């Protein structure tokens, strides 16, 4: 940052700060400030209340059963993340290394990639029927479905990245007596780290914030995720905006903290995925 910043640079900085203050911090501030008010403090909506009602958070916490929903969402997110990273990268590895050797594997590549064109909504109706036959309409089942449904995109990203890892490594490992699985697990998997980061970010953002799949699959209240519970509680919040916003803020807080903690890593991950 030793380059001189011109006057136009100062102008752009100012503009970007004003825009961010209005449309990013403004929205977050609004959510927070409504969350800590009582209904009679709502006359000046944007003003910070003289007596903040932090107990709104406790009320929303109990009313929506926050801890249970939080654990549900966390279990889904973490389970699908771990299994996505291992199984999807293994599938992509097999495809990347054998596309030229086997017609079937080359066809598998196109099979997975072409599924990118099939939006979830298209197969949603039959999937729900099938999920209830296979008892997948619960936390474990939906985690499993996230792993399967992420495969097309992740195959695309992993195979792209695997092109940059020389096959000579595989051959060397083979000569040393390793079978392809050992080669993958001990040599290739660790080398995929930058792509794991990208896929981890995309996977976590997807599963944590997803609304449609829980909505159609998780019909029992004990399986609800955080997003879904906000939808379900809409009628109970009715006109109590403060309680509703306290609940929204609690749900938004988790990804916000996650982002603040691993901000560099998240931005690098998404950028990395786009360039590949």
């Amino acid at each position, binding site marked *: 940052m030793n380059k001189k910043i*011109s006057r136009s640079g100062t102008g752009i900085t100012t503009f*970007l700060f004003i825009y*961010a203050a209005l449309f990013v911090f403004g929205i977050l501030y609004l959510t927070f400030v409504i969350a800590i008010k009582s209904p009679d403090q709502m006359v000046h909506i944007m003003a910070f209340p003289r007596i903040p009602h932090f107990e709104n958070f406790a009320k929303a916490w109990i009313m929506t059963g926050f801890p249970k929903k939080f654990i549900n969402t966390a279990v889904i997110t973490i389970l699908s993340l771990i299994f996505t990273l291992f199984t999807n990268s293994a*599938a992509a590895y097999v495809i990347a290394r054998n596309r030229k050797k086997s017609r079937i594997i080359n066809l598998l590549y196109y099979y997975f990639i072409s599924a990118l064109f099939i939006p979830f909504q298209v197969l949603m109706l*039959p999937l729900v029927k099938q999920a209830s036959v296979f008892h997948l309409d619960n936390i474990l089942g939906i985690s499993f479905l996230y792993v399967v449904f992420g495969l097309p995109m992740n195959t695309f990203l992993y195979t792209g990245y695997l092109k940059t890892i020389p096959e000579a490594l595989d051959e060397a490992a083979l000569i040393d007596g390793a079978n392809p699985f050992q080669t993958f697990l001990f040599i290739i998997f660790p080398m995929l780290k930058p792509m794991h980061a990208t896929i981890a970010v995309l996977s976590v953002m997807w599963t944590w914030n997803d609304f449609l799949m829980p909505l159609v699959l998780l019909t029992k209240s004990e399986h609800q995720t955080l997003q879904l519970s906000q939808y379900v509680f809409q009628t109970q919040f009715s006109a109590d905006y403060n309680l509703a916003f306290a609940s929204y803020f609690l749900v938004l807080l988790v990804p916000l903290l996650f*982002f603040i903690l691993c901000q560099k890593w998240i931005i690098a991950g998404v950028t990395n995925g786009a360039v590949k």
Partner: protein
Amino acid sequence: MKNTYTSKVHPVYWIMILPMVVLFFLFHTTPFLQGIFYSFTDWKGYGIWKVVGLRNYLQVFKDPSIQSSYLFTFKFALTATILVNVLSLLLACALNSKIYFKNFLRAVYFIPYILGTLIISYVFRFIFSNIIPDIGRALDIQALKVNILGTEHAWLGILIVTVWQSCAFNTLIYLSGLQSINPDIYEAAAIDGAEGLYRFAKITFPAIAPFFTINLVLCVRNFLMAFDQIMGLTSGGPGISTTTISVLLYKRGFQGGQFAYQSANAVMLFVIVMIISLVQLKLGENKEKKYE
């Protein structure tokens, strides 16, 4: 091509990939094929059914609520795609110029992406219903005094929320495109007298053309599927004026006993998304070739 597949594949590779292939077929391809199959039947989602051929498809074409949802979805997807890409490109250029607090600002502009769409929509619903009318009364602007989500302009509210959130991701992608441009090219262009818009059209844009293609494909796809923000803001109303195809599929498919009928609708949606994506990819490919 015949002689390219010569070497043998190590059996361990097959063991590694087979489970994934089976599961993918079972839980992704099978429901997809089932959907296509049921679209030719009269199944309600329960009870007995028979094959009815193309009847559902003929009905779908004549159904006014499906027609209106397609029209609305296209209008919405097209407008949102244009707005998101123009704004994202402007923001990316601004964030890529020589500014103070560069990394901080880049992080801030990414925040909307990480927030759940449904909850953001609830927050915006409150802004539209309680805050904007207040501002409208204070400034005495008639257009702002009413809750936009209750009027025939409800879709503009949905558009605002969608653009607000989608800009975050698209800006980041454009930004990574802009960063891949070698600054020497700009210096050479400056010597040749290329400045401002001319420089953008002749150097910057061709360099980020692949990123433009990615963004367009992702945007159109996501916006044609728009669901969360509609459910959060209007639930498809007033009337059915903001009902997208996804919302219609959900409401009628699960609650309306139109399983087979909405399956035909889903198949049409799939065909449309596929054609649009392929055309975009093809055009993008040509565009990139032209600049190579």
